């Protein structure tokens, strides 16, 4: 189920919240209700994968018990992590590996064509972190219902944030969280409205401009290419941070505080700063469960740089089973290595405007690999951005931008203004007051966004 759908906003969320608080006198019923609701949410489009996620929960819960109660905890932990990675490998990476092997000419091409279960990367990482922390003695075996809710809680289930048991379990276990807290409901509604606005008015409106460039990278000019790349930079931010706002908002209605995931990432003055602001819970996961176990900063300098590079290569691959993501991760890893070397050499920091410009252009440019359909397409796009494209087509994207319900050109300008604003949705939510103006704005945005869902597109084939 999508957050920006009628099914979710009109039926699912109100019913889930009403049931949760109605059953609040009995916390176990409340938790059970929320687990059931989350499974309905998960299986709404395709119930085929509900047994898969239930199996994954049961597997990890049992492994956690074995780690705690049996000897050789470390071995059980490795077995558990391997099991999770195997699941992820089969569903997400098997075809990529088989295709890559076939391209080397060593084996014939065989593809499994398995549909990727929704949210598998997120619920797998969440549970890997849990097993590692159980083995480290940082986490204790929870009640099975609370553990199931920890994994399935619908606001974070499909696209994060990647949560940590230490910050979630006490909230799921708290009896007071099963009673309505109106300030949380208010902030939840406000965040929900903010997220919907980001997704509906900005991210979705930018899509034609993005497609204009990325769908035809070999036949566009420099202006088109830069416009498309910039539009994608904004689209992915508003899409993902909008989704996260909706997730945080929905969770807050249930008195659950999910960790923030974005903190004005395009304000970053260097790449390190960027990764402290972009998909923060993934950065945290990679740092705690990959970079530090690899040795982190407490190694020789070449080893630290290698650790950084490996962490970001795998981070790139986590986003998708394609070489474009690997290159994207590698570029960010290399950028961070370069920053570290500069810092170790005692170089002075660049003036903020210069530092910001370099960082932003680097981020925009590397997004090309993230969005392009293939490496050749990405290189074609970069060639066009460098001025070696087909300048004759330079007006195409601008023409597309002028079309649409909310023209992409308007969304592009509005998006840049929003990105440049000093306050983001986190700070605005924190400082929300119970004023009529805030209420009217929240209601107006909710209504306007919901009216945008029902897209009635003309069928232009008629113009044959």
């Amino acid at each position, binding site marked *: 189920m999508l957050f920006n759908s009628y099914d979710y906003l009109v039926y699912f969320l109100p019913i889930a919240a009403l049931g949760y608080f109605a059953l609040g006198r009995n916390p176990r019923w409340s938790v059970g209700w929320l687990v059931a609701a989350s499974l309905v949410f998960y299986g709404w489009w395709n119930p085929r994968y509900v047994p898969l996620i239930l199996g994954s929960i049961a597997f990890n819960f049992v492994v956690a018990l074995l780690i705690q109660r049996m000897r050789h905890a470390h071995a059980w932990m490795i077995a558990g992590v391997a099991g999770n990675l195997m699941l992820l490998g089969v569903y997400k990476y098997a075809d990529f590996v088989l295709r890559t092997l076939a391209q080397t000419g060593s084996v014939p091409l065989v593809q499994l064509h398995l549909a990727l279960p929704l949210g598998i990367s997120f619920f797998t990482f969440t549970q890997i972190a849990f097993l590692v922390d159980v083995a480290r003695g940082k986490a204790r075996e929870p009640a099975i219902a609370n553990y199931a809710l920890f994994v399935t809680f619908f606001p974070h289930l499909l696209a994060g944030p990647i949560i940590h048991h230490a910050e979630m379990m006490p909230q799921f276990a708290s009896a007071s969280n099963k009673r309505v807290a*109106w*300030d949380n409901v208010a902030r939840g509604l406000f965040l929900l409205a903010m997220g919907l606005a980001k997704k509906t008015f900005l991210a979705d409106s930018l899509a034609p401009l993005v497609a204009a460039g990325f769908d035809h990278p070999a036949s566009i000019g420099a202006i088109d290419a830069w416009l498309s790349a910039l539009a994608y930079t904004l689209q992915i931010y508003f899409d993902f941070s909008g989704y996260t706002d909706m997730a945080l908002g929905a969770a807050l209605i249930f008195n659950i*505080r999910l960790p923030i995931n974005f903190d004005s990432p395009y304000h970053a003055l260097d790449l390190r700063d960027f990764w402290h602001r972009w998909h923060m819970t993934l950065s945290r996961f990679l740092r705690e469960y990959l970079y530090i176990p690899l040795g982190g900063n407490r190694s020789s300098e070449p080893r630290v740089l290698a650790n950084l590079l490996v962490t970001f290569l795998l981070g790139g691959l986590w986003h998708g089973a394609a070489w474009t993501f690997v290159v994207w991760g590698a570029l960010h890893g290399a950028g961070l290595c370069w920053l570290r070397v500069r810092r170790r050499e005692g170089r002075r920091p660049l003036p903020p405007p210069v530092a910001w410009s370099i960082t932003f252009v680097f981020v925009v440019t590397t997004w090309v690999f993230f969005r392009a359909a293939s490496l050749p397409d990405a290189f074609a796009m970069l060639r066009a951005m460098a001025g070696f494209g087909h300048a004759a087509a330079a007006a195409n994207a601008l023409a597309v931008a002028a079309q649409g*319900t909310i023209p992409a050109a308007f969304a592009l300008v509005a998006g840049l203004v929003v990105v440049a604003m000093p306050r983001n949705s*986190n700070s605005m939510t924190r400082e929300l007051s119970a004023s009529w103006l805030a209420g009217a704005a929240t209601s107006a945005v909710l209504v306007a966004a919901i009216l945008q869902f*029902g*897209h009635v597109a003309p*069928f*232009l*084939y008629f113009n044959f």
Partner: protein
Amino acid sequence: MWRRSSTSISDDVAGALSKRWRAWCWSVLAATIVALAAVLAVNALVDPFQQYRLASTHPPRFYRLHHRFIDPGLAKNASYETALIGSSIMESTRNDTIAAACGGPAVNLSMPAISASEIRTLLGAVYLAHDPRRVVIVLDFNALAGAPDARQDDAGPLPTYLYDANVFNDLPYLLSGVVLRKSLSVLLNRNDEAFTTDANAPWFWANQVTFGRAEVLRGLDLRDLNARFRQPARTLDGMRASFERNLLPVLSAHPDTRFDLVWPPYSMLVWLDFLQRDQLDVTFAFKRYMTQAIARLSNVTIVDLQAHDEITGNLDLYRDLYHFAPQVNEWIVARACAHIDAEDASNVERYERDLRARLAAWQPPVVGSASWNR
């Protein structure tokens, strides 16, 4: 992140704050619900795409680009005994023409580039509220191209929620801002987009275009006749799978309905195109298969109008390779419902030989100095 009321403030202040937030929440929710309910009421009452009733308080608006939204409304709410379903080539067929030839009242539910999967979905809407006596399906080979569930989703997904009987999933229609603008333009009597109010010819476009040989040949790439429409290549297995998934079950499930499956008279240029793209044999093989597939269904007749070169070879009757003039539409429904040129396993090969011979003998028009690529 967001901290609850500080422990330093008194319970009274906390209580007052909580009440204030509660009032704020209820105000926001109430304002949102009232606004959305108002939109829903306006869209449901005006019902610009006629999903719940045919327009009676205002002239109906048949928007030229919104077949996919209006057709299910017509399928559910119009009064008819005969339904015509086809692609854009059949849109310029008036309801009374269909009724006169096939028995009435009748409704034309054609929509551009309709796929077999979309025909199945549309027939689902037809049988929700009707048990039609007759359904004429003018089959386009391209409707059977691609995967069996393929739909023409270039303009967004088919609004399947309008093709069922469940009103609870109609919110994308009832709460749509675009539909609200349509409703308001009806109420304010504004014309925001091209439409016709002629309920007898809701999709008629033939009066807006020019027919004739010059029009057909304008800009035609003789070496690549498919350049303009970019029709996909078809395979026999793919077409069979699509037919067996989308049409055969419906034909079998409604023995009381007479189904007339019509092969329409494309211009000869289409057959040349098939020849260029190596699609001729697969096309004939599928026609032979069809006669076998429906042989046991006494309620189904195939009518093959493709060998009539007095029509297909006369480019003055066409606008382009595929789309013919309205008199051809009338000719089609008349022959289809009279079962003239009925095709079955006993004569399908004769029809094929006939068409192949006419194709071989046909002299394509000369266009400048360019030559045809056969």
